[in-house]
């Protein structure tokens, strides 16, 4: 039946009006939330139904296994494989001329260090790949040799803590490295040097020139820092408000101290034209206020009289995740780890109340720009939401990180009394470098800093220097820390971080748990 006459065409044309009627993004989010809740109730119900059956079947299986095992494997020795592994490790270590897999370059050696790394890791990889468990041993500590600016910083400012220790890498796991610019701060170094480095060399060690804005990346220049340590009767004060004022008594930078009593203020971060140099600092908590002149880089403030935290510990934990195709591996990793991370946090911090929010973003031309979800005290709902999502879409390199950050900071109800507010950002590419995008980022960073929200980027392995610079800037400005995925020996060429100092590798779940714990304990 065809109705392509004038009436049919008119009806068709009229019904095109429906194209403009689309469901609100929040309706999709509510639907996913409902599905997640449904899954949760089903799992609980199923669990209790199966409980009885399971106990009896497990007991039966156990007895059966014991009998089978005693018949088939009378001489089984589990130590055998372990010894074999140790043999391999010692062979590798001897070949490297070291007692461990630690690899120490001389500072002046350049520029074919990448090849040396590859050779070294290929060797150690080969030596250990024969192991049934596919384990390899690499060092988690590197020195940089690409740029003299960085090296001079490292020589002065970086401790060699744990250098020489080794880590066993299980190739079925994902690993992250951590680098905290605030902890490894050296005056006029660190991020400034990274900027200098990025103009001449990219993260893979090639000589590609990456153009960075001269006034810092994304409108932030984090080079002139004041570190404040707030204590009360010798105990660090968490959540103290720290405000830097300029000569005209205008508040130019506001931060909140962390669980170690530390807060970081920066001079002329967002606006270099105005004279926003901090002249004095006001630190306050619970009606106790101290005012100090900002003459030094490191200032201790004693807020004696203010009460130290004794109330309920609340952790506001948020993840914003780029869900484009390129993030598939990383997204699967967090999906598989998130339950364990939350469980670890709860078991290692008894009595803690965790509020979890999971958010996703892509880009303007994709299915969605941002897909936010509120904080859930029942973290299983948020976890189920995460598990219902997937990575899709390709397109251009830049993503809507700026929109995602603004949404994360402004559109969510962060607790006023949270002990720690942590915002993990999982991405592999920067936002567009436009005036509007920069403004959104600056706005989000300012507000996050003022509210004590620590941004903790988790970048993919092989991200470019611009992305790394932005990630480190976000972490540094807000008192967070920078983390990055680290691929295994086969991809080492792209994973040697030549822009940071000695870093430590952690298995993903362990690393994220450790980082969260650092803001709680």
């Amino acid at each position, binding site marked *: 039946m065809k109705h392509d006459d004038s009436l*049919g065409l008119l*009806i068709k044309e*009229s019904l095109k009006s*429906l194209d*403009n009627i689309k*469901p609100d993004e929040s309706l*999709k989010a*509510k639907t996913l939330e409902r599905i997640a809740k449904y899954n949760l109730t089903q799992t609980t119900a199923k669990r209790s139904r199966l409980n009885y059956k399971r106990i009896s079947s497990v007991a039966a299986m156990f007895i059966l296994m014991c009998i089978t095992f005693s018949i088939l494997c009378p001489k089984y020795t589990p130590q055998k494989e372990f010894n074999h592994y140790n043999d391999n490790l010692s062979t590798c270590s001897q070949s490297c001329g070291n007692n461990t897999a630690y690899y120490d370059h001389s500072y002046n050696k350049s520029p074919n260090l990448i090849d040396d790394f590859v050779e070294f890791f290929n060797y150690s990889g080969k030596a250990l790949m024969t192991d049934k468990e596919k384990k390899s041993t690499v060092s988690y500590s590197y020195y940089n040799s690409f740029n003299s600016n960085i090296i001079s910083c490292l020589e002065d400012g970086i401790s060699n803590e744990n250098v020489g220790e080794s880590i066993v890498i299980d190739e079925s796991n994902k690993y992250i490295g951590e680098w905290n610019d605030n902890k490894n701060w050296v005056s006029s170094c660190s991020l400034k040097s990274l900027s200098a480095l990025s103009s001449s060399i990219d993260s893979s060690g090639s000589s590609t020139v990456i153009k960075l804005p001269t006034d810092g990346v994304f409108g932030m220049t984090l080079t002139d820092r004041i570190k404040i340590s707030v204590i009360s009767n010798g105990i660090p004060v968490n959540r103290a408000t720290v405000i830097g004022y300029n000569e005209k008594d205008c508040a130019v930078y506001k931060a909140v101290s962390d669980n170690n009593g530390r807060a970081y203020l920066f001079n002329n971060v967002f606006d270099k034209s105005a004279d926003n140099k901090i002249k004095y600092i006001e630190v306050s908590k619970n009606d106790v206020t101290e005012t100090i002149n900002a003459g030094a880089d490191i200032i201790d403030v004693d807020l004696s009289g203010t009460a130290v935290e004794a109330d309920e510990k609340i952790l506001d934990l948020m993840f914003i995740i780029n869900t484009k195709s390129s993030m598939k591996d990383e997204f699967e990793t967090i999906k598989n780890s998130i339950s364990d991370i939350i469980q670890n946090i709860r078991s290692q911090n008894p009595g803690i109340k965790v509020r979890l929010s999971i958010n996703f973003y892509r880009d303007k031309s994709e299915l969605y720009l941002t897909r936010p979800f509120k904080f859930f005290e029942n973290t299983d709902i948020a976890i189920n939401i995460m598990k*219902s999502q*997937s990575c899709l879409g390709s397109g251009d390199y830049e993503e809507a990180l700026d929109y995602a950050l603004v949404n994360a900071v402004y559109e969510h109800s962060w607790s006023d009394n949270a002990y720690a507010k942590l915002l993990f950002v999982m991405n592999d590419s920067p936002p567009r470098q436009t005036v509007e995008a920069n403004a959104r980022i600056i706005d989000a960073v300012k507000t996050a800093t003022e509210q004590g929200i620590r941004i903790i980027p988790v970048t993919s392995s092989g991200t470019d220097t611009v992305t790394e610079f932005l990630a480190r800037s976000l972490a540094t400005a807000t008192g967070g820390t920078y983390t990055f995925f680290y691929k295994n020996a086969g991809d080492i060429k792209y994973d040697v971080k030549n822009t940071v100092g000695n870093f430590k590798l952690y298995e993903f779940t362990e690393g994220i748990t450790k980082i969260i714990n650092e803001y709680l304990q």
Partner: protein
Amino acid sequence: MPKGGVSPDADLRSDICSDISALIDRYSDMVYHLCIINMKHQYDAEDAYQDVFLKLHLKLNNKDDTDPFENEEHIKAWLIRVTINQCKTMKNTASRRNDVQLDENFISSASDPYHAGIADYILELPDKYHQVIYLFYYEQYSTNEIADMLSRSDGAIRTALTRARKLIKKILERRSKDET
């Protein structure tokens, strides 16, 4: 091919089918339109929308039926049938809200006034007519396909379509008279 049913890439399709959120993204507009035109009440339409996708999720995770859909067209047709049935069920329940009705000019307010006005009239037709009109002209299904989806005969669909057209024609004639 009916509107919305696209994806020549087999890998992409298998990826999409395994993920409820991707399916929601893909068929969100269609389900929402059907809910709105059937329920004519925004909140009820939103409830129906959520119910439909929850049913889809259950269908995809039904362990007794490991391969519930043959292809994307199958998913789409299933969604249309389930949405219409869901709306019918909800309309028959006593718990329907009476507080916030859909704006009479819901569509008019969203696009160019002339065609949107006509769309408003079309959607005001009785359910049995506007559903057929929507599926035939907007989703571009054949009368046979619509008959399968709505569990009616091809003849019944053709009759409904002809009567619906007559009604629309009358409405348009009355409208042009009123304007002159």
